[in-house]
Each structure stands twice: as C-alpha cells, then as structure tokens.
C-alpha cells in the first residue's frame, strides 16, 4: 500500500481542488446515462408479459435501492478511515453521503410502494426487501440525527462514525433476519422485482440506470463533500486562498 499517495490526495486542499475539478466528469456522464436509461426503460424496453408496463418502475426502484445499500457501505468505510487516520476529508465524505443515501432509501421505498400498489393491490406489503430498506432508512436517520444533536463538529464526526461502523456490521444481520422472518410468514411471496431471467433488451436500460445513478452520486458527493470540508477547515490558509482566487 502506498500511503504517501493516500496522504497526498487525502490532504484537504488536494481533495478539495480535485473534487471541484472533476465533479463534472461524474455528473455530466451520470446525467447522460440516466437520460438514456430513462428513454430505454420507458419507451424502448418491451412490456413484461406478466406485469405489463408496471415493471418499468424497476428502472427507478432498483438503482436507488442498490445505491442506498452501497452508499451505506461507502459511508461506513469513510467513517472507518476517518476514525483511524483522523482525516477530516473522510469525515466530510461520510457526512455528505448520509443525507444523499437517506434520500435514495426514501426513493427506493416510495417507488417500491408505487410498484406494489398495482401489483399487490396495497402499497405496503411486509416484504423482506422493503422492510430492510425501511430499517436502512432508520439507520441513516440515526446517523444524521446523532450528528446534528452533538454540538461540536469533531465530536459529532467521531461519534456518528462509530454508529455508522456498528450499523454496517449489523446491516447484513438485520437483512438476513428480516429475510428469514419473511420467508416464514409468507411462503410464496411475489416480491421478486427483477425476475432472474430478464431479457437483454429489458436489462440494458437497467444497467445503464445503475451506472448513471452511481456516477451522479459520486458527482454530488464531490460537491457536498467539498462543502463539508469547507465547514471543517474554515480556519486554514488554503481555504482563504481559495476564496480569494474564487472572488477574482
């Protein structure tokens, strides 16, 4: 492992500049992919022979569900790095992922319910994925609220990072216990949002959407991570230099 490299790019001013410089390299392709994916998903893909056009909701549901789970993992990873190396950059990234991840969890829940309404007849079914998605939302909210209710930035960063790490250890356990609970309650659940043998012309918009969401996510994290870093490094000289440059 080359830690020198890590320190070089992990140093606040470098991270800040890199983020703002390459932000659009993420957001612009991300947006393009999302637009292509939307078009492909909404118009090009053939309707499902069972679910008809309602299956098109998975083009919004699956990417956001996927992203909400992986965002929690990224957040916990950043939190771990922050605690081990006491790096403000890592804390900023973790903090900025939280609201974004929470909103994607919310999206996954809402689109899941919109899918459930025509398919199941009710908006909410105690399906394993929806339930663990809801628990994930609670975990995100716990992180956000803990961070918000500790007044000091440094303390809040470290305390909520501990929570994120404990949460990520617990997340698979929670997920599998919910799955286990669910299989016991409803032997034949129709929860499968993506059938295993999905046709190629249905699949490619989904993959494009997943990639698009991912790129867009990192693009926004670049910007809001830089914002959080700005909050934490207000006093340092490089910020002042940046502000002067920015003004002129």
């Amino acid at each position, binding site marked *: 492992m080359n830690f020198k490299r890590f320190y070089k790019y992990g140093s606040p001013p470098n991270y800040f500049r890199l983020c703002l410089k390459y932000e659009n390299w993420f*957001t612009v392709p991300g947006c393009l992919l*999302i637009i292509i994916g*939307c078009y492909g998903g*909404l*118009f090009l893909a053939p*309707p499902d022979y069972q679910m*008809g*056009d*309602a299956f*098109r*909701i998975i083009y*919004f*549901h699956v990417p*956001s569900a996927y992203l909400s789970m992986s965002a929690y993992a990224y957040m916990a990873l950043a939190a771990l790095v922050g605690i081990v190396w006491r790096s403000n950059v890592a804390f900023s990234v973790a903090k*900025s992922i939280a*609201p*974004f991840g929470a*909103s*994607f969890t*919310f*999206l996954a829940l*809402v*689109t899941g319910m*919109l*899918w459930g*309404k*025509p398919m199941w007849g009710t908006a909410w079914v105690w399906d394993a994925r929806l339930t663990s998605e809801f628990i994930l939302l609670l975990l995100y909210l716990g992180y956000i609220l803990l961070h918000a209710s500790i007044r000091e930035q440094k303390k809040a960063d470290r305390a909520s990072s501990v929570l994120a790490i404990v949460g990520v250890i617990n997340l698979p356990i929670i997920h599998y216990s919910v799955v286990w609970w669910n299989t016991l309650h409803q032997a034949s659940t129709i929860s499968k949002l993506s059938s295993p043998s999905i046709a190629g012309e249905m699949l490619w918009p989904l993959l494009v959407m997943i990639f698009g969401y991912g790129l*867009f996510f990192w*693009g*926004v994290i670049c*910007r*809001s991570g*830089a*914002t959080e870093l*700005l*909050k934490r490094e*207000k006093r340092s000289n490089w*910020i*002042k230099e940046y*502000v002067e440059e*920015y*003004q002129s």
Partner: protein
Amino acid sequence: MMEVLSMGEYGFFVWSSFLISIFVLLINYLCAHREFISELNKVKLNK
C-alpha cells in the same frame, strides 16, 4: 402518444415514480451546490 403515456393503465404509477426520482436527484444536486455557495459566503464574511 396517449398510448405511450398511459402505459396500459399503469401510467400513473410509472410516471409518478419517474417524476419523483428525477425530483429527488435534482433536489440533491441543487442543495449540494447551494450549500456550497452559502458556506463559501460564510468564510468570506468571517475573513
């Protein structure tokens, strides 16, 4: 055209999930940028 929009009676669900997804994505993007500017202004004021 109407046929495409109605999505075989599921139009409401499909389009509203489309709209809400785009809305949340946009909100996230805009909030990130707005907050960045406001933090920058705070730093300027403190100087």
